């Protein structure tokens, strides 16, 4: 039977896609339920309006440039999935470990999306919703609501992924407009009555700058810029989107990612931030970040439906991808059961509000863990042949575990963790030097291991 997804072979010319396909995909994937958490969390950091907007403009541009100049050129030359590429580079056993981590991260991410949807469902059921400082599930009502929402999402992801993907395509333009409506209604609720007053209210009532709120980190321009750049680190510099852009006819199609960034990670974050500012203005003691009640206050039932749909349509592919990653560990297990198990794990994660309330840190951690493999792929593809070394060494030597790649990955993670833990460096900043360290370590370790193998071959032959 032909491999229609081209999971093990390069994408042939007849299956390649044009620019518009990527435009739709990036917009629908980056207007997610989690945007409703990230916007308010920014506001809590005490960032000023100018710093926030400038940081988002620059950070999102850097993300687009990363897709354009790092991910897509390799994707359109090799045309393999990330997993197939990695298997050739570092061997099956290391890919299995990568899959396990990637699958777990996807489950936690999907968990936060389920949490967002559950806050909207909770408005209807009238349950006690979790507070900002809550770590454990709050009450039977929250547990029951989250379990029902999570179970529905998991079953649908396992049984009807394609139907939901189709529904997500339909929902995308409507969701964008509802997010825009959140911002417009929120501005009016803060007293803005003309476009000329927006900036004054933004700088005095929404993002006045100053000290962060209790328990939140302090953010300035660089924090916002690096967060916006690296919140999809695993996808661009981490190379996960090799699997996406292998279908692109031209590498410049990666420009389409700008639509996702500036709609989802600019407009939607700012709109969600405005909703939170309205909540703080109306009920100063209520600092909880609950997308459901905030959306309800601005746009009523349509807002609640938007929160549920935004969480659901993005949790669906995330759980599906987690299932695919886990299936690589157990190729003979049915995809339905594995996806269901991934959905169950995501639902359990969703019960704990701490995951969503600390989403900024989790997203940065997720990128940091998977980022070194992207650096390894870049060095392996572009640098090694120019230095007289061989790329895809594991495939050439029949290795299951390529030590040079493993060393670069683990040593980089250890260095990044040490910098965060003992060096006092914020987690948002460690991934850039980490990426360079991983590249350098892989280069040195590859040179050493390939020269050693060459010497052994010469010695064996003489």
């Amino acid at each position, binding site marked *: 039977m032909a491999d229609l997804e081209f999971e093990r072979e390069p994408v042939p010319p007849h299956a390649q896609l044009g620019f518009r396909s990527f435009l739709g995909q990036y917009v629908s994937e980056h207007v997610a339920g989690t945007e409703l958490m990230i916007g308010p969390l920014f506001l809590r950091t005490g960032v000023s309006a100018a710093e926030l907007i400038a940081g988002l403009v620059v950070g999102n541009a850097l993300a687009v440039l990363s897709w354009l100049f790092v991910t897509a050129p390799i994707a359109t030359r090799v045309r393999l999935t990330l997993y197939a590429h990695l298997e050739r580079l570092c061997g099956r056993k290391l890919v299995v470990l990568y899959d396990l981590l990637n699958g777990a991260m996807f489950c936690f991410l999907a968990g936060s999306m389920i949490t967002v949807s559950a806050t909207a469902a909770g408005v209807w059921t009238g349950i006690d919703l979790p507070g900002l400082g809550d770590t454990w599930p709050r009450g039977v009502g929250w547990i029951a609501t989250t379990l029902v929402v999570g179970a529905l999402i998991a079953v649908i992801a396992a049984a009807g992924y394609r139907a939901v993907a189709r529904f997500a395509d339909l929902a995308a333009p*409507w969701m964008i407009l509802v997010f825009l*409506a959140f911002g*417009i*209604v929120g501005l*009016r609720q803060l007293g803005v*009555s003309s476009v000329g007053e927006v900036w004054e209210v933004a700088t005095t009532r929404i993002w006045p700058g100053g000290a962060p709120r209790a328990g939140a980190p302090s953010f300035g321009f660089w924090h916002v810029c690096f967060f916006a750049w690296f919140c999809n680190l695993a996808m661009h510099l981490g190379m996960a989107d090799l699997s996406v852009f292998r279908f692109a006819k031209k590498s410049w199609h990666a420009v389409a990612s700008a639509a996702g960034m500036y709609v989802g990670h600019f407009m939607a974050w700012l709109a969600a931030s405005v909703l939170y500012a309205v909540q703080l203005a109306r009920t100063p003691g209520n600092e909880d970040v609950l997308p459901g009640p905030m959306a309800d206050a601005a*746009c*009523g039932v349509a*807002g609640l439906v938007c929160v549920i749909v935004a969480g659901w349509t993005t949790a669906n592919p995330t759980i599906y991808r987690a299932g695919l990653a886990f299936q690589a560990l157990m190729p003979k297990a049915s995809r339905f059961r594995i996806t269901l198990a991934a959905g169950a794990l995501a639902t359990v994660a969703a019960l704990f509000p701490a995951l969503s309330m600390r989403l900024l840190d989790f997203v940065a951690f997720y990128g940091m863990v998977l980022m070194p493999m992207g650096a390894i792929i870049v060095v392996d593809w572009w640098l090694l042949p120019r230095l007289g070394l061989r790329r895809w060494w594991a495939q050439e030597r029949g290795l299951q575990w390529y030590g040079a790649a493993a060393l670069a990955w683990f040593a980089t993670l250890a260095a990044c963790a040490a910098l965060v833990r003992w060096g006092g460096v914020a987690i948002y900043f460690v991934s850039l030097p980490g990426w360079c360290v991983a590249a350098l370590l892989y280069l040195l370790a590859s040179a050493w291991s390939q020269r050693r193998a060459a010497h052994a071959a010469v010695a064996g032959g003489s």
Partner: protein
Amino acid sequence: MALRRVLRGIAWLALAATLVPAVAYFRGEMELGAVKRWMLLATVVWFAAAWWGSPPKAK
């Protein structure tokens, strides 16, 4: 085919109607309660018209 074209036209109108109430509220021309009702109506119409108005293969 003609019905599908009509449905697509309705879908685009519903999409516009999702945002127009918010703009009217911003300009002080509509109450928030009315904004919420109009947005809900536009949402229902958008999903119905966009679903049945799209090509059968896409479903």
